[in-house]
């Protein structure tokens, strides 16, 4: 293949982008400070230009993967000629350098979107917002160019690449990182708005109205990204779990918790002018958590299922970046946060109180997750030994903290701003309470086993759903519900659906690791799973052993499942491909373990009731977010 100079162009575009980002980060900021209009108008074109440059750079890297340019080290390490095209594209962010390039590409993309969609915002504000984004981009571009250049050449070029980790050769991986990063990086916009407002001292309802759609959009992506990751782990890792409290999962979950708190706090700031300081602080923390997440994943300091071989120098750079961002923004916060602006006063019984309580619990929850995630690091750095904090810790702490949140979720929307009548609240909600109690008693009885935690799960989820339905009916009688209202209800019901899924799976799942030979059967959840045979199979870049299993109920075969054990040509490591018969009320999950003697295999057979509701709930939440963003009052009006 002809060597091209394209990778050099991609590299050069990155260097130019660094220069532009410095300009974008410094000049409009000074311009806004000194009131020099000719300086602050630079912000928009700079943001547009840096997005264009990153598009070139990212496009070149993608192209190099597409044409198998193994003279680029990163391509040679993460792809090979036999890899199907869609995974070659996914491989662009399959490693450290490429995923950081994606990070910056998305960051400039958000900056571009802000530049395009904020024509009505005053020039000083927009200059400051884009400057802050420019500064963040500068830090990350320095990082990429200094320690992790994706365009580094390999002389002489490799004949073929080393290939992508087989685990990552999956449609889930093609979408999971971009979604997650869109969310992570998206919080940079809320962060930039917060910093800009601190700088200008203009911390008002208009600021909240501007921040809200951006925050919600980032939150939608983050929600989808986490859900995709969880779903991917469920079917691809062959363990059948959907959440492991793994440090890297936690790293994505903490910004989500803080982001969720921020969404709600911004509502109060916009509608009532309250919680201003709190909203600003949450915006700072949310983005700091995103950076921390990047640090945890990319530094390799934590033992995690995501721990790929990494370079410690990179960790130190991100750590420095993290401390600069967190330190300087908190310093600015301490200096400039309005001292007296409490906003509208409110009673103990008011919507503000409910939102505040929910916020506090969400932040405490994020704090407890942070503690459990960083505790092993802390203990290790104090030389007190090496430890690990397991899922029992997180379940023991996180679940109790979430109970009041779920309870309040159904109450808050009924309450009035400023003050509300407790008796009226009780009158409106007793119906939902009855439904919840009945569900909590009946469903566990129908399913067989009763436990208090199970009953509590159904109590809370039906409490939320019933309250949501009652309120929607009430709203329909009065007026056409706004998109905001629909969004809120969908989001809350999404949480309830998620809780139902979690409760069902954790209470009633059946997991069997068994020895099975041809014609052996095993029963799970009223289904009979029979092994028919185990045959060899051939894939595009792997050899496989394929098991054939029949799933039947009441003597009738419903589905044939074919889990595989794959050996990829380019890798010594075998890969388990689970086969799943998915359904609305249950999944049947079969995966091959290891071969035993006499054609028998160790086989994993799972029955997972309502497991798809977990991700369905996340989809509903994201859909709710979408409705909220599309609300009329955020409709973009052009400045004429």
């Amino acid at each position: 293949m002809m060597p091209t100079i394209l990778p050099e162009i991609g590299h050069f575009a990155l260097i130019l982008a660094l220069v532009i980002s410095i300009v974008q980060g410094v000049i409009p900021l000074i311009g806004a400070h000194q009131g020099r209009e000719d300086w602050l108008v630079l912000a928009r074109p700079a943001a547009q230009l840096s997005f264009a440059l990153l598009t070139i750079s990212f496009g070149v890297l993608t192209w190099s993967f597409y044409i198998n340019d193994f003279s680029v080290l990163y391509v040679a390490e993460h792809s090979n000629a036999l890899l199907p095209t869609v995974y070659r594209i996914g491989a662009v962010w399959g490693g450290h350098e490429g995923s950081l390039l994606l990070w910056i590409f998305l960051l400039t993309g958000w900056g571009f979107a802000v530049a395009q969609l904020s024509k009505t915002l005053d020039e000083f504000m927009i200059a400051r917002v884009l400057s802050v984004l420019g500064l963040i981009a500068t830090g990350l571009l320095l990082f990429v160019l200094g320690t992790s250049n994706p365009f580094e050449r390999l002389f002489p070029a490799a004949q073929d690449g080393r290939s992508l980790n087989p685990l990552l050769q999956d449609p889930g991986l093609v979408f999971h990182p971009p979604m997650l990063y869109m969310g992570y990086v998206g919080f940079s916009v809320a962060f930039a708005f917060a910093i800009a407002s601190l700088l200008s001292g203009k911390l008002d309802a208009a600021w909240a109205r501007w921040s809200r759609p951006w925050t919600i959009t980032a939150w939608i992506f983050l929600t989808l990204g986490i859900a995709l990751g969880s779903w991917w782990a469920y079917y691809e890792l062959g363990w059948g779990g959907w959440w492991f409290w793994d440090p890297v999962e936690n790293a994505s979950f903490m910004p989500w918790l803080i982001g969720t708190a921020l969404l709600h706090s911004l509502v109060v700031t916009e509608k009532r002018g309250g919680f201003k300081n709190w909203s600003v602080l949450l915006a700072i923390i949310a983005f700091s958590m995103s950076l921390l997440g990047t640090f945890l994943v990319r530094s390799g300091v934590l033992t995690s299922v995501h721990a790929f071989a990494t370079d410690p120098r990179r960790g130190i750079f991100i750590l420095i970046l993290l401390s600069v961002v967190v330190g300087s923004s908190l310093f600015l916060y301490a200096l400039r946060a309005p001292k007296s602006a409490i906003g509208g006063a409110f009673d103990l019984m008011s919507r503000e109180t409910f939102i505040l309580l929910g916020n506090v619990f969400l932040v405490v929850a994020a704090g407890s997750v942070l503690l459990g995630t960083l505790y092993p690091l802390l203990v290790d750095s104090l030389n007190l030994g090496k430890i690990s904090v397991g899922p029992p810790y997180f379940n023991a702490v996180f679940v109790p903290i979430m109970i009041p949140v779920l309870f309040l979720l159904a109450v808050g929307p009924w309450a009035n701003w400023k003050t509300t009548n407790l008796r009226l609240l009780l009158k409106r909600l007793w119906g939902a309470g009855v439904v919840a109690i009945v569900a909590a008693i009946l469903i566990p009885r129908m399913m067989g086993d009763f436990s208090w935690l199970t009953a509590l799960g159904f109590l809370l989820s039906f409490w939320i759903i019933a309250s949501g339905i009652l309120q929607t009916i009430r709203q329909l009688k009065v007026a056409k519900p706004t998109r905001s209202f629909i969004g809120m209800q969908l989001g809350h019901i999404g949480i309830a659906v998620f809780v139902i899924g979690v409760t069902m799976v954790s209470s009633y799942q059946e997991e069997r690791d068994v020895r099975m030979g041809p014609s052996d059967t095993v029963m799970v959840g009223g289904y009979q799973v029979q092994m028919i045979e185990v045959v060899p199979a051939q894939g595009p870049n792997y050899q496989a052993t394929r098991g054939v299993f029949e799933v039947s109920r009441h003597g009738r075969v419903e589905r044939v499942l074919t889990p595989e054990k794959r050996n990829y040509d380019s890798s010594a490591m075998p890969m388990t491909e689970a086969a799943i018969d998915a359904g609305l009320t249950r999944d049947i999950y079969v995966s091959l373990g290891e071969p035993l003697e006499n054609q028998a295999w160790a086989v994993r057979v799972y029955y997972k009731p309502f497991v798809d509701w977990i991700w369905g709930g996340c989809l509903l939440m994201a859909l709710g977010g979408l409705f909220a963003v599309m609300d009329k009052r955020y409709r973009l009006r052009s400045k004429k």
Partner: protein
Amino acid sequence: MKPRHQRALWIVGALVALAIAAVLILNALNSNIALYVTPSDVVAGKAPKGQAFRIGGLVKPGSLKRDELVVHFIVTDLVKEIPVSYKGILPDLFKEGKGAVVQGKLDEDGQFVATEVLAKHDENYMPPEAKHALDQAQKNGDKP
């Protein structure tokens, strides 16, 4: 109630809530952490008694034996060896001669009964705790 009293009440309430949360968290942390112990330290009797812990090290080549669903293998830091048994299906990346981390307890015969064998995403990756165990053993200069 005067506003000043009301505020005091709020503060006391918040402090009580915080204290309860702290107790819950510390309690949960205490009973749910697993210590990493190197094979040499296990042999030296430094492993926690009656509590689950983790061992990091290499899976000794040739030590893997299957007995239906139960697998037996040896985890070593190249100085001392610990026999491990595990009932269930091993992760894909578990291999003789490679690093591994196991969690479980010692039984009366000094055999480690694992409840969990940790899997990693990347075949070229060595768990830091396994590497730590090897380094530790080498530093002490013990002979096998």
